[in-house]
């Protein structure tokens, strides 16, 4: 393969090596190694393209070590699109890299089978739950040694009742202000059904009639982040079809509300997957434009009005609870959303929003990173756990399923008395469920 095809060479030239990104990079802060920094990784990519460096195992390892948190991208004055650069480099390397037969099998099973098919996902969840209950997982982790450590760290799969799917249509509670499509997600229903149901209740309580595309499985963000560009393209196509088929009475496609920052960030940058197919590109851009993170849906237009009306019905509790917001990378660095969630949390009666240091840096979840590289993922979370403890928060709020699981595991390990909740769950518990009934209207 031509070395130039291994990386997006032109984009790598955008880096002027000023170093302003270094101090934001979790893997550089952990190791002090330049090739594990954004500037260093871009240097490696450029060296590969210029035939100065072989795309060898060490190169691959530095790509894998990256969390793809895109913190570096947020601070880069030169406008380097690091996320896109890294996705490209991983995808281009995938066909030529050496993986053991087992690793290859697991990868193909995960990306080509499970994540692309609802019944396979459900079956995997059932098998996984049984294995976890029987202690088989811990056993496998012990036998598999270092490489299977991720298994033991994998989140507990909830019982079948909690894994129920969302209904196709849920009416607004009270006055209908708007209609929206909610992205149910691929692993969300299996691992975090409670978060999905909370999201649904919050949206309905804020006046949304909520639709769910039940035939849709996965938006492809995990594929895109992990070097599976063609799988990502296929899933992007399916997502387009599912979303474009839902419109309101006037025929306008429904806005798509997303409660997973990783998926939202991917959906807002969908167009490049269809480069060279103008019609699909246009449709992808339109979908991106109507994709809203939950926090956006509740701070603008009818959603904001609905939330305000709802908040007005919440009595002030006697005791307030301290909560800290942790910016999910794909919300802050991927979608540049920082104010909205804080504004929402700041308005909840009885919730005191306390600042937490390092809120803007990665927790180590990073999609499936915490499964692939559990030891690194833990090390990345360590300083943030200390910051959480220092903040005095009793609740840690996030807005991304992976972060939720990663934090929950970390808090458990550290023995902190902190609950980890999704923004939707906080709203459900502290607003929706305690609001006085609306006066008949």
């Amino acid at each position, binding site marked *: 393969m031509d070395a130039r095809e291994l990386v997006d060479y032109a984009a790598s*030239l*955008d*880096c*002027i*090596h*000023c*170093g*302003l990104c*270094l*101090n934001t990079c979790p893997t*550089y802060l952990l*190791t*002090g*190694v*330049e*090739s594990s*920094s954004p*500037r*260093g990784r871009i*240097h*490696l990519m450029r*060296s590969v393209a210029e035939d*100065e*460096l*072989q795309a*060898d195992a*060490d*190169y691959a*390892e*530095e790509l894998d070590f990256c969390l793809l948190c895109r913190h570096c991208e*947020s*601070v*880069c*004055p*030169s*406008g*380097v699109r690091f996320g896109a650069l890294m996705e490209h480099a991983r995808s281009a390397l995938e066909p030529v890299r050496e993986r053991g037969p087992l690793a290859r099998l697991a990868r193909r099973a995960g990306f080509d089978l499970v994540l692309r098919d609802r019944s396979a996902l459900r079956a995997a969840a059932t098998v996984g739950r049984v294995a976890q209950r029987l202690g088989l997982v811990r056993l496998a982790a012990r036998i598999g040694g270092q490489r299977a450590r991720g298994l033991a760290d994998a989140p507990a799969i909830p019982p079948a009742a909690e894994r129920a799917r969302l209904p196709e249509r849920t009416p607004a509670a009270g006055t209908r202000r708007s209609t929206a499509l909610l992205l149910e997600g691929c692993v969300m229903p299996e691992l975090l059904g409670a978060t999905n149901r909370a999201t649904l209740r919050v949206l309905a309580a804020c006046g949304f009639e909520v639709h769910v595309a039940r035939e849709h499985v996965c938006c492809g963000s995990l594929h895109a982040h992990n070097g599976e560009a063609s799988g990502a393209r296929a899933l992007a196509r399916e997502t387009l079809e599912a979303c474009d088929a839902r419109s309101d009475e006037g025929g306008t496609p429904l806005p798509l509300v997303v409660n997973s920052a990783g998926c939202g960030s991917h959906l807002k940058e969908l167009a490049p997957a269809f480069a060279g197919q103008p019609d699909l590109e246009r449709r992808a851009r339109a979908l991106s434009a109507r994709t809203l993170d939950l926090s956006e849906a509740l701070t603008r237009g009818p959603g904001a009005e609905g939330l305000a009306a709802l908040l007005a019905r919440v009595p002030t509790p006697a005791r307030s609870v301290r909560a800290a917001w942790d910016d999910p990378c794909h919300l802050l660095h991927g979608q540049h959303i920082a104010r909205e969630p804080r504004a929402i949390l700041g308005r909840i009666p009885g919730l005191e929003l306390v600042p937490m240091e390092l809120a803007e840096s990665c927790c180590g979840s990073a999609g499936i990173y915490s499964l692939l590289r559990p030891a690194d993922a833990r090390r990345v979370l360590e300083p943030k756990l200390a910051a959480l403890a220092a903040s005095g928060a009793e609740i840690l709020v996030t807005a991304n399923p992976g972060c939720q699981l990663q934090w929950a595991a970390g808090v458990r390990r550290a023995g902190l008395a902190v609950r980890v909740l999704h923004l939707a769950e906080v709203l459900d518990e502290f607003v929706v469920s305690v609001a006085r009934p609306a006066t008949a209207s």
Partner: protein
Amino acid sequence: MDARVVEELRAVLGRDGVLAERARRTPYEADGLAFARCLPELVLLPRDTRETAAALRVLAAHGIPVVPRGAGTGLSGGATPVEGGVVIGTARMRRILALDADNRLARVQAGVVNADLGRAAARHGLFYAPDPSSQKACTIGGNVGENSSGPHGFRHGSTTRHVLGLVLVTPEGDVLDLSRPEHDPHGYDLVGLFVGSEGLLGIATEITVALLPLPPLVETMLALFRDLDSACDAVSDLVAARLEPTAIEVLDQLTIEAVEASVLAAGYPKDAAAVLLLESEGSEAEVASTLGAIEPLLRARGAFEVRRARDELERARLWAGRKGAYGAMGRVAPDLYVCDAVVPRTRLAEIVRVTIAICQARGLRVANVFHAGDGNLHPNIPYDRRDAGQLARVLEAGDAILDAVLAVGGSLTGEHGVGLEKIGAMGRAFSPDDLDAQCRVRDAWDPARRMNPGKLLPVHACRETHTRDPRGGAR
């Protein structure tokens, strides 16, 4: 590299402390002087003084050349590796060892990032004065190496004014503790000698710095001009009038365009040909009187708008924009060459004009963003190192600018050091006797000349002077 040496080094630094794989060494091949590159044989990352000393002893025993490195943001090639040499990086020495708020000092490991020290100090109402624009990345050790300054150097001076003590490791691997207070009054000021020595005398591992109390009030002012000349003349006037703001920076239009197109967009007006960014700190009365006295001078030189930052947020954004100017130039070209020369402040406008003409004559673009209060020019020349012809013209322009600066009694470097970049000009700035004296100082510390060889002091100058050694003892 000899496998035995690698094993010896691993024994003292651990596996993670020795980078031998090609992919892990590659990003160290250059610092901020992008066109100069050389692959190091190894990169060593000690965690403290003891490990640094142990590693240097191994390297001394094998006669291996050493290049110290902080964050590699240096712009003169001070951290460019040398043929057959290793790099010793301080990126795993990032601990703030002590912060004594009552005595206003901090003891830090050399790899502590300038901005991290600033943040820690701010928690105690203090700050660390030297503030290079690279402060979010550059290390205190690198600042010591280059005697770095920054926008606020106008008032507070460069690094050397703020370093109280050092622990350093000599090229042979001996530890020299120059940080205990009793060293201060006696004998030579070795700390002063070490600051600015560009990695030729040893490796600083721990640095004790002075911290200053945060001023009660800081105000930032912007003055917009229709041409760069007037902005420069206004600075000359301010300095002549002995007005003492804390910082006087100039940004020209190309710089502003790049900054405003970036994530650091700060609201710099795009219609001004030049902007003066001024800051004053002190009591309310002091700030009011300083800025009040400055404004009419600026207007007299044609400032068409003078305004103050409304709040702390705007102030922070203006500075972030200024400090991100280098990075923002990445939108113009893949590489940036930053000249660094100091001229008498009465001649700012004239020399800036000359630098622009020099660049234009060679078909090069140039952005001017600089520490005007100090007379420290930074003509920024965007280029692409893959274009050999263009690179040659950039270097030629750099040389011509230095000549122009030396001709008016200026100096070779304000804050970026000589490194590799300006080593050729040393012979023009110093007489053979001067250079000889400097070589002898170096030889007293590093007789084998293994520390950062080929930087700062031209080797041929050393050889020449040694053959003229009055004692006849050429080495």
